[in-house]
């Protein structure tokens, strides 16, 4: 019966692909040509795989059916993603998205971004994020009318580098990243051996193992993306982290004890950002101001670092990651925030934070005018009745 189900359901999915292809082939602005090609390529691939699955001769269902169900589930998920991410973005093209696409092109040029520029859509229902396989950067619906979170775009631009570490032009970055990763694995391996020698509790060994897995699966990439943000947009990136932590974050010292977490502790991330700002020479006073503001926030909320926090995010490892990230990002020719070249977007985002702190209450009026300069087509669209 399950094979009969697969047969019918595969045919229905093939019909869905046919209809989705029709949507992608409609008329859209040329900024979306790349995204349309990606979607069509994925639809073609999924169609071939569904056809292969439909044509497979069943000889031994006990061996074949479990594998066929797994493959079917993976293909359905791929199809859902193409429809719900790529084609959804194409199908909701509007003036604000088009204006933001031009801004991303400008940012990519300013920093000498080494990959294809992503397409941008205001379709995020949460916060900034990127679908690397679609080259699609997503922002909340009206986020580009405000400036203080915008430095997070630079962080998101870094994630696709991690999906392309085998590219020759990213080799210095890949080397720095992998060396940091294995440095961290070796560190926790030594910690585990030491805990074992001291006949430490099993719980500590489990935690060390858990932290190593978190670093390998998620955190190292997140730290490198943060440090890429600091290197490319400067102090505005660390301010954006401060802004986000106050608005949406929890205890910045949270350290996993029983379950994996995808994001490292916010305080550890801030330590890495400050370490990078100071290593850049030229941002010392900004780093001091950010650190003062951060400490005041932590004290006001009575957050405290635990012993586990210090074991999970050791100073020496954070400093080593900072040095490696700088070497890797410099090595692929990214234009750093310290460069003397003029960078309209980067300068504007840093200016936004200076203006905010000079007169927080007056900031919204200044911000509205500045957004109008940065994203003129969107400003015009907003003024239309």
């Amino acid at each position, binding site marked *: 019966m399950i094979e009969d189900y697969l047969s019918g359901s595969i045919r229905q999915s093939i019909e869905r692909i046919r209809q989705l292809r029709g949507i992608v082939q409609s008329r859209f602005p040329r900024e979306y040509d790349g995204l349309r090609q990606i979607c069509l390529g994925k639809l073609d691939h999924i169609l071939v795989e569904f056809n292969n699955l439909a044509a497979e001769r069943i000889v031994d269902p006990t061996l074949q059916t479990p594998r066929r169900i*797994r493959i079917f589930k*993976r293909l359905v*998920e791929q199809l859902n993603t193409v429809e719900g991410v790529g084609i959804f973005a194409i199908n909701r093209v509007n003036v604000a998205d088009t204006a933001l696409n031009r801004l991303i092109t400008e940012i990519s040029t300013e920093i000498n971004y080494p990959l294809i520029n992503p397409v941008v859509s205001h379709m995020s229902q949460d*916060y900034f994020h990127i679908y690397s396989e679609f080259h699609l950067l997503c922002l909340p619906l009206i986020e580009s009318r405000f400036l203080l979170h915008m430095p997070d775009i630079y962080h998101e631009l870094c994630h696709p580098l991690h999906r392309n570490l085998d590219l020759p032009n990213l080799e210095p970055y890949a080397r720095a990243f*992998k060396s940091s990763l*294995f440095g961290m694995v070796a560190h926790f391996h030594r910690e585990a051996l030491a805990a074992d020698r001291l006949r430490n509790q099993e719980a500590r060994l489990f935690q060390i193992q858990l932290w190593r897995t978190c670093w*390998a699966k998620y955190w190292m990439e997140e730290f490198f993306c943060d440090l890429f943000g600091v290197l490319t947009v400067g102090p505005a990136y660390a301010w954006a982290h401060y802004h986000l932590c106050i608005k949406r974050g929890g205890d910045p010292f949270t350290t996993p004890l029983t379950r994996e977490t995808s994001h490292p502790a916010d305080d550890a991330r801030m330590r890495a950002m400050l370490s990078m700002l100071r290593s850049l020479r030229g941002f010392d006073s900004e780093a001091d101001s950010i650190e003062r503001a951060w400490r005041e926030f932590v004290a006001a909320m009575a957050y405290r670092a635990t012993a586990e926090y210090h074991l999970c995010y050791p100073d020496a490892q954070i400093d080593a990651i900072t040095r490696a990230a700088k070497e890797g990002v410099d090595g692929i020719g990214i234009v750093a925030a310290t460069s003397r070249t003029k960078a309209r977007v980067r300068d504007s985002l840093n200016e936004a934070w200076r203006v905010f702190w000079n007169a927080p209450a007056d900031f919204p009026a200044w911000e509205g005018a500045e957004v109008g300069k940065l994203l003129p087509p969107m400003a015009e669209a907003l003024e239309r009745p």
Partner: protein
Amino acid sequence: MSDLSLLTGIYANVEHFASLIDTVIEHARTHVSATAGSEQMRLGQLLVDAGDQGQASESYEALMLDSLLRNATGETPLNLPELGQRLLAGTIGPSDQRQLEILAQGLERERSEVAGRLRGRG
């Protein structure tokens, strides 16, 4: 602070390894007495390298596979290097097929969990 950028990367890795293991399972079924295919050799080497989290070979792929195969208590379901050695040595026996099926089921659970988190169900 959104998890999506990281999770889409993890999902791609899970899918990649799950597809590799299913290919080896299918090859073992249809080529019972044949020599190991290239995917079997690749998977065998990955499992051997995953034994020390990819440290000796500096294999990022092996480190990622090790991380993805660990269960909630941080343990790997099987002796990965031993299975890897047998895959590298050639023909796959029925017990190896069962072990590959266990790895495939584990990755399917991980895939389904990450997919749920990506859709906001996690």
